[in-house]
């Protein structure tokens, strides 16, 4: 295995990135639009938790649907677009050729986003599938898989046609994510939508899918970004890099097994929750190696490293908490309470999003060839987002602990339980508000930079009309 590259960031757009500039900017821009939309919906669902009458008149935003819309916009819209953009970029750079087949990526991105939009309209009007994490209406799902294949094509080509013999960890994670999603999503559709299996086997298949979505698709893309960027930003080799392949394969092999921690005591075969314990214990190894590899993020001070540092801490905490709650003695208490969404936020907003932000904040200036036009907005986003994550995870955790005591150990009526949770739920709303505000700042910063870069390009083209390259 060769060493991670440590070249200095390019001041100008490298010849590698020049042709990929607008396709990648399209992915990043769509990601940020979905991000803002999903945080707006998250605010709505947060308010509905303490004030159930909020927007109750609006059938499209009744709590169950708002929840499904939020989750879809976040997973497939924000994390999907951002992760694929980073994955393609990394595979192109490390593959040693400019990305090929970019037209496919553009067409794929357009259809992916249109498909998602259609899916969102479908959910709002009552055709969601009813499986958490997979609510997109069934007619849209095959379109999304096809669009994804087109989006991923340049990445897979870059990986297969790479110049160097050796490969980097960033490449394994990115290539695996691009390759695996179409395959397991098709498998899930087959057994859930096209010839549905009977009864609770559907629940098993849907939970397996949701877990794989995070463990085999989104997290690998986020980790690819971290593996690519950390050595470049710290200027040092990754310590313990020789264990990285083992960490990779542990995640790929066991990542999908741990969904059973949500089904403890449920009407599914008893070995499913047991396998979750096994998987979580094996995954500790993955988390350990990741911690070792990224140790140096604690030294640096750039904004990118701050995001990655926060993400790393959240990721390790996630690993620890998921392991603890996969044991039955703990799981029966945390199950069905707000501790579950608290941990989910830690994973998705704390770890996944932070890695992706770190990636985007690093990537974007390098593909458009100029620094962020509004750096204060970007660092403002960083502070608000971190604050928001801390507040909402802690407040949900607090609510969840109180809920467990009232729900599982007393006969307190539900209306009273909710009344007692009012305080932490209000705090949670405040946290979601901070997340929304931060995300708006980042979107504005993105649009300003993109606009400035467009203008400059037009200006340059006007100055030298004869030259074709820009």
């Amino acid at each position, binding site marked *: 295995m060769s060493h991670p590259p440590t070249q200095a960031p390019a001041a100008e757009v490298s010849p590698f990135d020049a042709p990929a500039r607008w396709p990648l900017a399209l992915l990043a821009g769509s990601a940020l639009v979905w991000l803002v939309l999903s945080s707006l919906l998250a605010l709505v669902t947060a308010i509905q*938790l303490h004030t*159930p*009458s909020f927007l*109750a*008149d*609006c059938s499209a935003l*009744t*709590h*169950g649907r708002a*929840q499904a819309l939020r989750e879809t916009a976040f997973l497939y819209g924000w994390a999907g677009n951002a992760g694929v953009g980073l994955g393609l970029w990394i595979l192109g750079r490390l593959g040693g050729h400019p990305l090929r087949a970019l037209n496919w990526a553009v067409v794929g991105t357009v259809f992916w986003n249109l498909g998602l939009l259609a899916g969102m309209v479908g959910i709002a009007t*009552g*055709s*969601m*599938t*009813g*499986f958490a994490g997979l609510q997109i209406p069934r007619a849209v799902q095959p379109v999304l898989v096809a669009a994804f294949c087109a989006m991923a094509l340049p990445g897979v080509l870059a990986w*297969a046609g790479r110049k160097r013999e*050796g490969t980097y960890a960033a490449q*394994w994670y990115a*290539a*695996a994510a691009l*390759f*695996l999603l179409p*395959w*397991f999503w098709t*498998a899930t559709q087959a*057994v859930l939508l096209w010839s549905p*299996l*009977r*009864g*609770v*086997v559907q629940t*098993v298949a849907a939970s*397996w899918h949701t877990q794989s979505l995070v463990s085999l698709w989104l997290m690998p893309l986020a980790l690819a970004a971290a593996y690519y960027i950390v050595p470049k930003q710290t200027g040092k080799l990754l310590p313990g890099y020789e264990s990285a392949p083992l960490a990779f*394969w542990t995640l*790929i*092999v066991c990542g*999908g*097994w741990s969904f059973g921690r949500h089904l*403890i*005591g*449920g*009407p*599914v*075969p*008893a070995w499913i929750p*047991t*396998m979750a314990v096994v998987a979580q214990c094996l995954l500790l190894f993955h988390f350990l190696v990741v911690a070792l590899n990224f140790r140096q993020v604690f030294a640096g001070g750039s904004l990118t490293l701050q995001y990655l540092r926060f993400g790393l801490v959240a990721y390790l905490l996630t690993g620890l908490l998921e392991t603890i709650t996969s044991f039955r003695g703990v799981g*029966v*208490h945390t*199950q*069905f*309470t707000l501790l579950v969404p608290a941990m989910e936020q830690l994973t998705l907003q704390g770890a996944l999003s932070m890695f992706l932000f770190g990636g985007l904040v690093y990537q974007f200036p390098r593909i458009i060839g100029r620094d962020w036009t509004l750096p204060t907005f970007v660092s403002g986003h960083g502070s608000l987002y971190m604050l928001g994550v801390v507040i909402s995870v802690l407040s949900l955790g607090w609510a969840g602990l109180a809920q467990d005591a009232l*729900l*599982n*150990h007393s*006969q307190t009526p*539900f209306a009273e339980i*909710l*009344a007692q949770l009012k305080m932490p739920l209000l705090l949670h709303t405040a946290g979601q508000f901070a997340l929304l505000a931060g995300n708006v700042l980042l979107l504005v910063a993105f649009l300003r930079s993109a606009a400035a870069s467009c203008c400059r390009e037009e200006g340059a083209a006007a100055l030298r009309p004869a030259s074709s390259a820009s």
Partner: protein
Amino acid sequence: MKNRPLFLLGLFLAVLTSWAGFVLGSHGQLGSLTPFFDEADGQSHPARLPGLAARGQLVYADLGCAACHTQQVRRPGFGNDQARGWGERQSVARDYIFHAQPQLGASRLGPDLMNLAGRKPQAPSADDLHRLLYTGSAAHPAFPFLYETREIAGESSRHAVRLTGAAAPKAGSEVVATERAQTLVAYLLNVNSGFEYPEARPLPAKSPASPEAKK
């Protein structure tokens, strides 16, 4: 990782084993469950939902009631599901074989609904449910879009919701349940899995040598 086809094959096989193990494995174990014919009452259990209720189950799914309600009772010793009166036994896979989309749910902001129609001492009536869904409460969202307010023309509708107090419509009009509300309530009046299958006899809470075994 240098060998490209081998790497992809490895990825493919890793996910294939996971999928086959979990999804096909549980299908193999549970896919052939049939209703249980009880000699004593001469009926098979679970019964299929009547048509109206079966459609209501889809309304339940598309409104996302599962965001706050589970439909799975855990065995004695797991939380206090029995003490809350949600069911005397744990839910088992056989309970769901006729559910088009099982809505197990993952959050209990509201009570479990697996045995709503069998609540002791008294299950909610259709009127109670319509009132809950139409007006909501301090803890419950309202679903007013499932109802129509209209002038009473001649006789009042069979599906009018009986409302009193602040929620009551003004004189001369009535609040009528739409078809979706009727099917949803028909479904809620039918969710009940009281029958005790041999595999669901509750284990005595005190000697859980291996409470997870034998399912």
